[in-house]
């Protein structure tokens, strides 16, 4: 490796806020009272809440120091497979912070919220255009919430036809949350095995699909980063038995403006605005998982939805077949504004974003396939999946290599997922990174492969340059400490 971007710097330690401060410190001056004091009803009194007394600088330094321990996409490359950690353009933040948008009260009458409603309406239309589907609900707050909404729509659809279905097909290369979403809706998930090329075969679906099965949940591209080439045949088999096809759009960053979900036979698809459409995520931050459907399923979408009645934009609440509300008001509105801003900024370039995301992943795959085992050696979409098979003889695991990457200044890829690849190392560079950055990342991984052969103990002891070293994940999982220790007086 020519030059590592990682160096060490001074990182300041910082206790919990409870352990800071001194009685009487404060962050603001409260004006002295100009009304006579009156005693409170003793029935209303209880134990005082044990908040620390802190000055403004105590609080500012606390959060500034914590932020310096952080690593985000604004810090460096974050190739976390399946998560699409692309850069979040700052203009999105500017639009979302605009008081005309941010301060609009969601309970205003439709006539007084035309701007907000228009934004939502246009975003619905844009997402329909991008996916090829006909109608959109912006309500779900995350990918898995979109999946659940999709399953509720499946259920409402079958109910409306007097058909009782109890099962759902889920390939072993689908997203991990799919079975849980289906189970929450009362469906029993039936796993479908992919073939030796990591592909779902129409014949495997045909063998399992029957009239007690509500449909299939397909992730396309799948979690191996491969495009399901038999998607149309699979959809035809499912439809022939009266079932529906759910498309998990979490990997949509590979296919913007390239794949028409409707023509692939998908009936319901969710999008992760926080992945594909560049809104901030990670650390559990707010997401949005809009659900797009065919016109046949439009009556089942959650309410309210924005419609245009010829004169103005309105929130439509009355829809007898709807699955009902899945979120308060407009959904995670701030996230929707950011995604709308991104789509308008990108325009037709969205397609190019997908093309570059796919190119970057294939470049990494080709450059690293001599150093790491590539279980499915074929062109990939937006991510590639390696394993630790070549490193096993040195007793070096995927976890060791991921930890070592931290020392090199990169966020590690997703590890041990998908489960169909033993010791998986799943890399998704996104379109964000330039060639120089990707070359640096490749050089770091090649260096790690060399270290695995020559100095495996270095990898087992990684990371070395971080504020904290290898964490005891086992102890953390077995005996989690969920509350801070409160300092006792005099300590």
């Amino acid at each position, binding site marked *: 490796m020519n030059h590592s971007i990682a160096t060490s710097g001074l990182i300041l330690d910082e206790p919990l806020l409870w352990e800071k401060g001194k009685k009487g410190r404060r962050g603001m001056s409260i004006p002295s009272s100009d009304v006579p004091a009156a005693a409170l009803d003793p029935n209303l009194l209880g134990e005082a809440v044990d908040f620390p007394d802190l000055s403004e600088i105590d609080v500012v330094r606390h959060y500034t120091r914590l932020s310096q321990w952080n690593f985000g996409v604004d810090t460096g490359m974050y190739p976390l497979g399946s998560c699409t950690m692309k850069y979040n353009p700052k203009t999105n933040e500017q639009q979302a912070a605009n008081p005309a948008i941010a301060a609009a009260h969601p309970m205003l009458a439709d006539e007084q919220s035309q701007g907000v409603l228009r934004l939502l309406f246009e975003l619905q239309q844009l997402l329909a255009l991008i996916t090829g589907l006909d109608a959109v609900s912006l309500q779900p707050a995350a990918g898995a919430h979109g999946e659940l909404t999709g399953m509720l729509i499946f259920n409402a659809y079958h109910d409306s036809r007097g058909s009782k279905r109890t099962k759902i097909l889920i390939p072993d290369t689908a997203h991990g949350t799919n079975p849980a979403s289906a189970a929450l809706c009362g469906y029993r998930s039936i796993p479908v095995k992919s073939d030796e090329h990591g592909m779902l075969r129409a014949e495997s679906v045909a063998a399992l699909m029957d009239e007690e099965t509500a449909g299939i949940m397909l992730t396309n591209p799948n979690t191996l980063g491969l495009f399901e080439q038999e998607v149309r045949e699979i959809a035809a088999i499912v439809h022939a038995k009266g079932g529906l096809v759910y498309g998990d759009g979490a990997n949509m960053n590979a296919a913007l403006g390239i794949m028409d979900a409707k023509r692939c036979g998908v009936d319901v698809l969710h999008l992760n605005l926080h992945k594909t459409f560049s809104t901030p995520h990670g650390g559990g931050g707010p997401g949005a998982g809009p659900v797009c459907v065919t016109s046949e399923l439009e009556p089942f979408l959650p309410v309210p939805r924005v419609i245009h009645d010829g004169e103005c934009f309105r929130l439509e609440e009355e829809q007898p077949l709807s699955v009902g509300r899945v979120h308060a008001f407009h959904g995670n509105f701030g996230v929707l504004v950011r995604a709308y801003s991104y789509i308008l900024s990108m325009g037709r370039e969205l397609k190019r974003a997908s093309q570059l995301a796919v190119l970057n992943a294939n470049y990494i795959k080709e450059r690293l396939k001599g150093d790491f085992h590539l279980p499915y050696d074929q062109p990939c979409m937006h991510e590639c999946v390696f394993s630790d098979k070549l490193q096993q003889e040195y*007793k070096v*695991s995927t976890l060791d290599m991921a930890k070592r990457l931290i020392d090199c200044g990169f966020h590690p890829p997703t590890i*041990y*997922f998908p*489960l169909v690849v033993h010791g998986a190392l799943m890399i998704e560079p996104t379109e964000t990174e330039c060639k120089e950055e990707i070359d640096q990342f490749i050089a770091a991984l090649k260096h790690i492969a060399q270290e695995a052969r020559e100095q495996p103990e270095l990898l087992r002891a990684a990371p070395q340059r971080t504020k904290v070293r290898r964490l005891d*994940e*086992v102890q953390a*999982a*077995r005996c989690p400490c969920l509350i801070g220790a409160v300092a006792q007086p005099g300590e």
Partner: protein
Amino acid sequence: MKELQELHLPENLGYTEDHEWAQLTGDTIRVGVSDYAQDQLGDIVFVELPAVGDSFNRGDEFGTLESVKAVSELYLPVSGQVVAVNQELEDAPELLNEDPYSNWILEIKPAAAEEYDQLLTAAAYLELLQG
């Protein structure tokens, strides 16, 4: 992780393709996971057990093992009713890593005794692992 020849696979047990073992003792069968399973999973942090009295068919999922890496389902090697579960595992899941054979997971009263004879021998199981 262990090499295949380092695995401990007792001869007196029956094995499944899903890496469980079963041992006939009197008229009940004890069930656990193989050395290969515990080694592949890595440190086990949680064991989800069924209730005594539950009945399962052969191949049914009867619980889960959670390790730092993943959650894995447990499948019953032979049909039957649960007569005992190893409560110790609830507070000390690491016992499965320490010795996956003395630390059994549950005990069942088999519904169809002949299913036990259809399990893999240690040699056949090792062959399966060798691929």
